[in-house]
C-alpha cells in the first residue's frame, strides 16, 4: 500500500491508500465521534455522527467519514460549524431514545432535549452493532432487523439461537458488549414473554415456532 497525503483540519497527514477518513484521522490522533463504528466490523454509516466536510470552496460536501476512502490531496474538516450543527441535531434526536448519551458528546455539541420530539426510550439506536457482530464475526445470524422507519427494531431469532449461540459464543453472549446503550439484556435472550404479557418495547423480541413473526409485526404495528 502506498502512502498518500491528506489534509485534515489544516494538518498534513500521511496515510495509507485505501484507508477511510476516520481511520486516517484516528491514526493521526484527531477525534471524530462515532456510535455505530467498530474496528472488527465493516463500516455501516448508520449513526451519522462521524460526518465530515471534504473539499474546498464551492465543491465542499458532507460525507460519512467511516465510509469515505481517502485519496491524494483530500482536504477534510471535522469540526466546522455546519458539521457540529448536524451532530447536535443527531444527538438531539437520539436523546429521545436513549437518555444516557455520554455527557462529553452532549456538552461538546451543545445538544439539548427538544419538546418537539416525543420520548420513546427504547434504548435501541439501531446502530446495528449487535446484528453485524452476530453476522460478520460469528456467522450465527441470531439477531436481525425487522420493519422500516419508526417501527424498525432488532429481534432475536431463537431458532437460530438454539442452533448457533452455544457453539458461537459458548461462555456468554458476546454481542452484549457491543451494544452502546446496553439494551440487549440477557433477560430476554432466547426466551419469550408469557401469554398475554405485553412485550417490553425496549427489548428485542423473539421469533420462534410459538411466537409467530406475524404476532411480532402486529405488536409493532406492521400488519
Amino acid at each position, binding site marked *: 500500500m502506498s502512502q498518500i497525503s491528506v489534509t485534515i483540519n489544516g494538518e498534513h497527514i500521511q496515510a495509507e491508500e485505501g484507508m477511510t477518513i476516520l481511520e486516517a484521522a484516528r491514526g493521526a490522533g484527531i477525534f471524530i465521534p462515532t456510535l455505530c463504528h467498530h474496528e472488527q466490523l465493516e463500516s455501516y454509516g448508520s449513526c451519522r455522527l462521524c460526518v465530515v466536510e471534504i473539499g474546498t470552496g464551492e465543491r465542499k460536501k458532507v460525507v460519512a467519514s467511516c465510509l469515505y476512502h481517502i485519496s491524494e490531496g483530500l482536504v477534510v474538516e471535522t469540526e466546522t460549524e455546519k458539521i457540529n450543527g448536524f451532530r447536535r441535531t443527531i444527538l438531539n434526536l437520539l436523546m429521545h431514545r436513549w437518555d444516557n448519551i455520554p455527557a462529553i458528546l452532549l456538552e461538546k455539541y451543545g445538544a439539548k432535549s427538544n419538546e418537539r420530539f416525543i420520548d420513546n426510550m427504547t434504548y435501541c439506536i439501531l446502530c446495528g452493532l449487535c446484528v453485524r457482530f452476530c453476522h460478520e464475526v460469528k456467522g450465527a445470524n*441470531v439477531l436481525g432487523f425487522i420493519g*422500516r422507519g419508526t417501527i424498525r427494531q432488532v*429481534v432475536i*431469532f431463537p431458532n*437460530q439461537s438454539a442452533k448457533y449461540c452455544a457453539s458461537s459464543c459458548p461462555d456468554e453472549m458476546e454481542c452484549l458488549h457491543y451494544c452502546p446503550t446496553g439494551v440487549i439484556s440477557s433477560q430476554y435472550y432466547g426466551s419469550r414473554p408469557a401469554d398475554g404479557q405485553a412485550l417490553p418495547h425496549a427489548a428485542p423480541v423473539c*421469533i420462534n415456532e410459538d411466537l409467530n*413473526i406475524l404476532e411480532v*409485526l402486529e405488536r409493532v404495528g406492521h400488519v
Partner: protein
Amino acid sequence: MSYSLAKVDQIIDGYGADKEALIQILLDIQHEFRWLSRETLMHTADRLGLPMNQLYNVTTFYKHFSLVPQGRHAVSVCVGTACHVRGATRLLDRVAQGLKLSPDETSADEKFSLKTVSCLGCCALGPVMVFDGKYMSNPTSNEIAEIVEECE
C-alpha cells in the same frame, strides 16, 4: 393449497438460485401464491444459502411483501395527498363498507384484500381505486357493489 415448494423451487431455479436475485425471487413467489408463508421463506433461505433474518429484514422492509394470505381480488385505494384532498377518505369508507372490510384486511373467504396505497401517479383521476389492476376514478357505492357482485 396456499403454496407449493415445488413451484418455489422452479422459480428459484429460474434465477439460477442466485442470492443476488432475492427480491426478484420473492416477488415471483408472492405473485404465484399471493403471499409469503413462513415455510416458503425458510425453503427460499435454504436454497439461496441466506440466513432467515435477512429474509425477514427484506420482507418486512418493503410494504409490497405480504406475510399474511391475500385475497383473490386486490383492491387498493389511494390515500396520497392529491387523492386525500379530493376525498380519498370518503372513497375509502365507501369501499370498506362495500367489501365489509377495514383497510389492510383480507376477507375470511380470501375473496378480497383491501389496501391503502400512497399515490399511483394518476392524481388527475383522484380519488382513485384500483381493482385487480383496473383504475377507477371515484367509483360510487353502486359501482363498488356491482363489482363485488360480479366477482367469484
